[in-house]
């Protein structure tokens, strides 16, 4: 039966309101593009956390130092996968490397990624684990022995002098790694912030907001991974370490939240012509994901949780639960930030006169299942890496002391 005029009108209202250009009806950057900055943020955050121990000598977080490096690696391996799946032709990604266009920020991704993976993370992990790798290659048998021998790259010298050099190199790479981590995630923020045609994205604060939210998400992730891995290994959680992580998470959240507030107030005060459609966007399309999930559940509640958990007089068991729940909420909040930036920026028309909607697919290369798969995949990769290079410090504390 043919729908009535009213039904047709209602069908229209469900998908868009006001005036949108024909090419804005379908969103080009899907859920996978939400996932990409989320994953790179976790990488940068986990690495920056690791560098606190190495560069700034925050020795209390030693139990998560190596785990952070391996987590960063596991997530970095998966970080470009959403882009590959989104493009549909992963093999074409190589074209960007063969013939780089130096004036395109997006085309620089391959180099930023390669630098971070090959020169920063892998090198640091290699230097940090080299003594262990050599020991494994000596103590293992069969294929395992040869596998570890291959990982040593032929460098089997573990004399005191060689280990001192490893340590020095590790520190050097970490110092170099901090600006690199800033570059990696600042770069992702730059991609959005430099799109001047989009008033929701175009902001010089974007890279710095991305960066701090990355650090927040990385620390929260390490709290979760540390707590879960300790639980499954039947070990006792180092409360000194966990308290310090919670403290760092709290401080970075305050900075991150202030920066976002600054961005918001700045936009409100500037009150450019886009302000009307942006206010409609916030109150209408992004109400749940911005006001409820990002600001309330993802920022205010965990900040209060961390204050109570860290500075309140609570028994350790309760403290751990509060930290865990806060860290989970932070992850939800940071994912919402990515969603609100990527999807939110495409929900309003460039005519500034209308709004469209985004319907998440379930199946397909850019669907929800793919996203869930790519979110879980790094955890399996991490499991594999941890099996090859156990990062646990329980028996190796003396390595760094």
């Amino acid at each position, binding site marked *: 039966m*043919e729908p009535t*005029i*009213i039904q*047709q*009108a*209602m069908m*229209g209202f469900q998908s*868009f309101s006001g*005036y*949108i*250009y*024909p090419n*804005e*009806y379908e969103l080009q950057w899907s859920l996978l593009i939400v996932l990409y900055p989320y994953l790179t943020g976790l990488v940068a955050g986990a690495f920056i956390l690791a560098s606190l121990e190495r560069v700034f000598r925050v020795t209390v977080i030693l139990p998560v130092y190596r785990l952070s490096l391996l987590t960063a690696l596991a997530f970095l391996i998966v970080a470009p996968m959403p882009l590959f799946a989104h493009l549909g032709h992963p093999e074409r990604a*190589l074209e960007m*490397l*063969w*013939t780089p*266009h130096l004036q395109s920020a997006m085309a620089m991704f391959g180099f930023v990624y390669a630098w971070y993976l*090959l020169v920063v993370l892998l*090198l640091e992990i*290699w*230097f940090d684990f*080299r003594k262990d790798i050599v020991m494994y290659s000596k103590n293992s048998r069969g294929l395992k022995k040869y596998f570890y021998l291959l990982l*040593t*790259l*032929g*460098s*089997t*010298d573990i004399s005191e002098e*060689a280990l001192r*050099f*490893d340590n020095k*190199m590790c520190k050097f790479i970490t110092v170099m790694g901090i600006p690199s981590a800033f570059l990696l995630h600042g770069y992702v923020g730059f991609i959005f912030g430099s799109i001047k045609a989009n008033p929701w994205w175009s902001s010089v604060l974007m890279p710095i907001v991305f960066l701090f939210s990355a650090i927040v998400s990385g620390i929260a992730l390490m709290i979760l991974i540390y707590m879960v891995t300790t639980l499954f290994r039947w070990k006792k959680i180092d409360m000194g370490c966990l308290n310090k992580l919670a403290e760092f998470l709290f401080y970075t959240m305050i900075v991150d939240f202030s920066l976002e507030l600054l961005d918001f107030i700045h936009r409100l005060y500037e009150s450019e012509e886009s302000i009307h459609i942006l206010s409609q966007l916030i109150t209408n399309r992004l109400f749940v994901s911005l006001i409820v999930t990002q600001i309330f559940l993802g920022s205010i509640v965990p900040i209060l949780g961390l204050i109570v958990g860290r500075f309140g007089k609570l028994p350790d068991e309760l403290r751990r639960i509060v930290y865990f729940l806060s860290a989970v909420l932070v992850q939800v909040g940071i994912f919402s930030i990515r969603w609100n930036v990527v999807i939110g920026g495409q929900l309003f028309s460039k005519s500034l006169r*209308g709004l469209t909607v985004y319907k998440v697919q379930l199946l397909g290369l850019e669907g929800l299942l793919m996203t869930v798969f790519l979110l879980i995949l790094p955890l399996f990769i991490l499991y594999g890496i941890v099996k090859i290079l156990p990062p646990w410090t329980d028996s190796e504390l003396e390595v760094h002391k």
Partner: protein
Amino acid sequence: MPKIPQQVISLGILFLIAIGGFVIARKFFIPHSFGLYGHYRADAVEEIKKQEIVYAGAKACYDCHDDIYDLKAQSYHKDVACEVCHGPAASHVENPDGVLPPIPNDRKGCAICHDYSPPRPTGFPQIIEARHNPGKVCKSCHNPHNPTLPHTPESCSACHREIYMKKSISSHASLECATCHTVPEGHLTSPRANEVGKPQKREFCGQCHAEDAQVSKDILRIDLKTHGERSLCWECHYPHDPETNT
């Protein structure tokens, strides 16, 4: 000379292999004509040039069909090229009598632009194809080369479908457009030269919404003296879909 640590030698070799591999791979994968004219494969230009030309371009049509061309150039369809409706015509230009471009004899082509779609700008003529004279071919009433309407539209919805749709399910559904808009006589035939008028006084909306208005008590009321200061009502409220709960 200081001793080079073993690790540096191992890594150095690995990096040299990686960089060397990258350089060799570049030689292998980059097409030889890349970069000749710019940041693209120059051979692509030749390949594109070799493709068969199927479109003739509007100027070619003008050479023989200048009467129709001139008629269309004065009409609303002046920006619609001939081949949009008649299809690629290069072969027709080469062989005018042997190959004749199709003359559309259905409703599909017109509906591409004129079927109702909310994103289209208001004022753009739109119909709901299934309801608009079903079964009749468009050109039996409209001349595509001069598509001025055969008779003036009977309803505002012919051009303002989006507003009409919104209003039809709003609390203002029962109001005729002309209740609020003054419609100059020439608007139906020459809309842009004769624009409709909007209420310019707050008292106009006050006829129904002021506290002392003599209408049904179910209609929302405001104090005209204090509400919204000196703004016109439609500067804050959208009269085609007014909010009902405030």
